[in-house]
């Protein structure tokens, strides 16, 4: 009889070929997917060559997506992308997405069915934790770890302790996955789950869309978490069906699994949130934001660039116009989201509101391009980080919110509650 385990422990044990693992164990685990992008892959490729490795462990499981500074914003970024492309061609990688095929990696991979429940995914990008929403173990690593995984198909990992979060109650109107995770980070802090797994459970998670679940797991890293994870259910299977390219395995935590702690929230008490500069833990309910005039709004990213996010923004923007002092930038995260938004007529709403519609890219989320802030400028963004200088000048400010709040703020010219703008 193996001991009771959490879903995270079960996936790690399975991939390490062990019956059971405990927090603190160091394991060498088999990797289902290894991911890199235009910033992190060039270093990994250099390391891979230095290792003397000839071939990647599996050309279907090493996935490279240039999405950060793409389409290349300058010569240096173009050289980085070229390095990655040439490697992808040389290694005959099956999953290489550039140009009109490219999208923000963490929105793109699930959409294409490249991650399935039960997988172990490492990515040289901190928001790799997004895939936990599929019931996979997914964590961010650096380029050297990626290089090692590309060569060996393995990664060393320390089995984390797990914190269980229970979301009870029904969230009110305009409260999305983003608000639940911002609220959580506000409560536990940016190091509240340092080195630990964050397992999200409870009726409010059961009722949440896959899009909302991706948003929550995406921001586990913002609390210092190693991974965020949600046990797969009928919704997960409906999402994976028709996309999943590989066989999946459904894991879930044993009822008597050991948690380092359990934190319970009542979602009926949670309002739409805004994280003030310069840490995601500086959250406040929108109603207590005060008078904060803004200059830019960005709706997109791996956190909130999915079709549901586009619809949520459009619901608020319909019939409204962005304040003339505000640049409104909408970035559908993938080509499929772009196409869907166009087909659903959302682009008409965005354009009428005065928005710029960008091709899928990380762009301004990390201060890359397509909407960089000057000193003193403030931006409400549906992204995940509001660090100093994250979106441009060191004296600019980023406020994190859900797409409806971001859209409402664009219209009001200051941080605003969607209820105050929609349908006006």
């Amino acid at each position: 009889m193996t001991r009771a385990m959490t879903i995270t422990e079960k996936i790690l044990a399975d991939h390490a070929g062990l019956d059971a693992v405990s927090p603190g164990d160091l394991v060498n685990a088999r990797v289902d997917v290894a991911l890199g992008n235009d910033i992190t892959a060039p270093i990994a490729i250099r390391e891979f060559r230095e290792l003397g490795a000839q071939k990647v462990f599996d050309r279907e499981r090493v996935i490279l997506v240039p999405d950060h500074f793409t389409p290349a914003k300058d010569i240096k970024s173009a050289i980085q992308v070229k390095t990655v492309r040439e490697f992808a061609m040389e290694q005959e990688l099956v999953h290489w997405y550039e140009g009109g095929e490219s999208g923000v990696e963490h929105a793109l991979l699930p959409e294409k069915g490249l991650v399935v429940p039960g997988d172990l995914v490492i990515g040289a990008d901190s928001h790799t934790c997004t895939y936990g929403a599929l019931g996979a173990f997914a964590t961010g690593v650096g380029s050297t770890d990626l290089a090692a995984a590309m060569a060996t198909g393995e990664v060393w990992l320390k089995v984390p302790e797990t914190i269980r979060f229970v979301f009870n109650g029904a969230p009110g109107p305009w409260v999305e996955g983003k608000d639940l995770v911002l609220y959580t980070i506000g409560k536990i802090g940016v190091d509240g789950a340092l080195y630990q797994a964050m397992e999200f459970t409870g009726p409010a998670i059961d009722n949440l869309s896959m899009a909302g679940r991706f948003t929550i797991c995406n921001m586990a890293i913002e609390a210092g978490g190693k991974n965020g994870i949600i046990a797969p259910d009928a919704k997960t299977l409906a999402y994976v069906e028709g996309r999943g390219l590989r066989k999946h395995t459904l894991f879930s935590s044993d009822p008597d699994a050991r948690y380092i702690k359990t934190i319970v929230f009542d979602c009926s008490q949670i309002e739409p949130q805004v994280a003030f500069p310069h840490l995601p833990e500086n959250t406040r309910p929108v109603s207590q934001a005060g008078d904060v005039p803004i200059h830019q709004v960005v709706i997109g990213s791996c956190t909130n660039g999915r079709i549901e996010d586009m619809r949520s923004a459009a619901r608020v923007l319909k019939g409204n116009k962005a304040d003339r002092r505000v640049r409104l930038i909408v970035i559908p995260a993938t080509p499929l989201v772009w196409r869907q938004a166009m087909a659903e007529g959302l682009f008409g709403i965005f354009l009428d509101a005065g928005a710029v519609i960008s091709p899928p890219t990380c762009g301004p989320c990390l201060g890359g391009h397509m909407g960089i802030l000057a000193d003193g400028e403030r931006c409400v963004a549906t992204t995940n980080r509001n660090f100093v200088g994250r979106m441009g000048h060191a004296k600019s400010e980023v406020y994190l919110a859900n797409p409806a709040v971001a859209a409402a703020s664009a219209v009001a010219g200051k941080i605003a509650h969607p209820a105050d703008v929609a349908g006006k």
Partner: protein
Amino acid sequence: MQPIEGRVWVFGNDVDTDLIIAARYLNTSDPAELAKHCMEDADPGFAAKVQAGDIIVAGKNFGCGSSREHAPISIKAAGAACVIARDFARIFYRNAFNTGLPILECAGVSGIQSGARLRVDFDKGVITVLDSGETHVTKPIPPFMQELLAAGGLMPYIKRKLAARV
């Protein structure tokens, strides 16, 4: 590992990877280029002031944020010999060992001022403030990490493993 002595630069809590190396400089992975912008948005003059062998001392959650290995690479290339913090964000922690930047977790260093001189004995896990003689004992580096450091980082470690396989 040989003990080191160096001058201290103090930073606060939650020093994120954008502060260590801002994303606007990530269109290259050249260590010398990255070094020029190390800590720029936290202390614009840092890259010019820091000297080989200096030591960074910080509070909790050092290196939080992105997975960019450019962060430890820029610190190392700027000349810093080691980072001591109350604790580290986990990806930064991995990346530092993988790229051969020595780091130590130590809660006791919070009172140390910029400009102080420290002696760091990695093997014993003892940090000494040279002016006052005050010492701090740190958590030892976990055995597996010591193995990585002894091999010279993750790449040489893997190389050895791959060689053993064939």
